[in-house]
């Protein structure tokens, strides 16, 4: 078995909501409520779930952009939360992030060449004289002309900006990238370009991704392994083909069935879920999905289903699978 690149164990992230006269921290948004998974080198792990299910929080906490509440995150065997600031800064270039919103992820007042090159300079990863060349090279690698190097972000379209952001991450030669819904804001035709870029970069550089998305069709296309999140927990994790052909969790099934298919001739049976995702401040007891689950029983209200292996790495958290 290959060594894992990212190892997440029992990760919890609660955001306090201040309340009470003195702002005593009474209540918590349980954004991530106990998540375990492993990403191996070269693997693309897709994280899927509805809005507010905690996908971004997982991604950001792994990068220690938030402090954790509980659990561990290991990057190449090193505990991300156990290192000091100095060391963290050293690790940073190896694990990068690509954002959803191409418009706000670039500083509007900085030339893109500087935006891409500044980290190299700050970390001393390249000679000053070489930086421009590296940046040009990276731009080309990400499908942009190197002539753009001195332009400002507002001169680019959304798709181009997303390439710039990817280039900024790639310039540091990372081994792991968290991509937080990188194509959600883009048009179909541009989406395809960016997804292909991700795929190319991954294949050429042997990168690993944590690819966050709510669009199952994109995840299926890009990821090798998929985790389904619901209200801060992973409810199902499996390899791509396994998950898409044999979904086990009722939520996964509903999710898959809800994706509209661009073919008017296919009329498939839909599982329409009742209601909406409950609040993560007061999540339902037992199985969090039970309030919307068509098969929920009393047991679901009492027992929390554990994420268990049902064979060949397919994990699921449901009492009735």
């Amino acid at each position: 078995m290959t060594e894992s690149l990212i190892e997440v164990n029992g990760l919890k992230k609660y955001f306090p909501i201040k309340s009470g006269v003195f702002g005593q921290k009474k209540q918590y948004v349980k954004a991530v409520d106990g998540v375990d998974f492993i990403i191996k080198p070269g693997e693309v792990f897709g994280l899927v779930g509805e809005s507010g299910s905690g996908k971004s929080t997982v991604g950001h906490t792994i990068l220690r952009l938030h402090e954790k509440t509980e659990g561990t995150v290991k990057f190449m065997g090193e505990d991300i939360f156990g290192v000091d600031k100095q060391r963290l800064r050293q690790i940073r270039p190896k694990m990068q992030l690509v954002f959803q919103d191409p418009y706000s992820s670039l500083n509007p007042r900085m030339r893109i060449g500087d935006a891409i090159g500044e980290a190299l300079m700050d970390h001393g990863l390249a000679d000053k004289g070489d930086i421009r060349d590296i940046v040009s090279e990276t731009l080309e690698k990400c499908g942009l002309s190197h002539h753009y190097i001195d332009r400002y972000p507002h001169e680019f379209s959304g798709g181009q900006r997303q390439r710039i952001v990817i280039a900024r991450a790639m310039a540091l030669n990372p081994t792991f990238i968290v991509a937080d819904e990188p194509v959600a804001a883009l048009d179909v035709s541009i989406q395809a370009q960016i997804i292909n870029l991700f795929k190319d970069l991954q294949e050429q550089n042997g990168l690993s991704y944590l690819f966050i998305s709510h669009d199952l069709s994109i995840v299926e296309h890009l990821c090798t392994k998929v985790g389904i999140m619901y209200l801060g927990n992973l409810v199902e994790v499996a390899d791509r083909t396994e998950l898409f052909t044999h979904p086990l969790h009722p939520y996964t099934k509903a999710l898959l069935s809800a994706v509209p298919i661009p073919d008017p001739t296919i009329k498939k049976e839909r599982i329409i879920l009742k209601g909406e995702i409950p609040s993560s401040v007061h999540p339902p007891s037992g199985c969090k999905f039970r309030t919307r689950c068509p098969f929920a029983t009393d047991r679901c209200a009492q027992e929390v289903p554990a994420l268990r292996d049902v064979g060949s790495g397919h994990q699921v958290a449901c009492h009735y699978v």
Partner: protein
Amino acid sequence: MNSATVKHANHGQSTKRPSLWKDTWKKIRKKKLAMGSLYFLVFIFLFCFIGPFLSPYAGQSVNSAIINQPPSSLHWMGTDKFGRDVLTRLMLAGRISLTVGLASMVISIILGSALGAISGYYRGWPDTIIMRLADVLMSIPGLPLLLLMGALLSELKVEPEYRIYLVMLMLSFVGWPGLARLVRGEILTFREQAFMKATEVLGLKDRRKIFSHLLPNTVPLLIVVATLNVAGAILSESALSFLGLGVVPPAASWGNMIDSANSLIDFQQRPWLWVPPGFAIFLTVISINLLGDGLRDVLDPKMKQ
């Protein structure tokens, strides 16, 4: 490699907009009112800073033979009660009023943005201290605070010619808390923007985060606030001078020129003493305000249509 190497920039906008300044200039040039104001301000500056060299009179020297003379070909704006040429004094006063306005703006901008940036960026206890201090200062009503400082600063041994620097300091001292709050607010917003998260992910140093990323983004706001501040400072200085706490004679400021003409007879029969400084203040301040408004249109994205 990906086939989609894009050749054209966004929306075919071939016009390169290299910097904030040029961009701003380009846009502001289209605004008639703002440009008119700008030209007027340039004129006022030349008038005040070059003008006195062209005047045959010294602003300070007293000549009791020609006191309170109405405008004539010799003294285009007449003379005052010490026989000084009003036009020359108007120009000298303008230097002071403009300097006070500009300098107090610069100081409060520096003070306000530095403190606001620290407070917004580091949060925690520096934030608490700075913001509480700002709260305290802001909860003391402005004019009493100015009066107080005016009286306090007169303790320092300063010649009247240099007293304006104190006035500037005072005005900036009163001005910074509001500005610090504003900058802090901006920085807090920017902090949450993805590009600031990116600086974290990239592992950039704090210095770079603040100076290359945060502060440059507050520049548009600062420019707008700065212009409006200049106007405010000129008005405040004139009010202080009127109350005898601002710039002190014989050094002239527009405010104390009006003040020294506040007797009934001056007011009724010697308009040349108070009309020129009054209008100088009015026109300068309105120009600055209109320019500031134009800049706001151009620079503040929230104001864009």
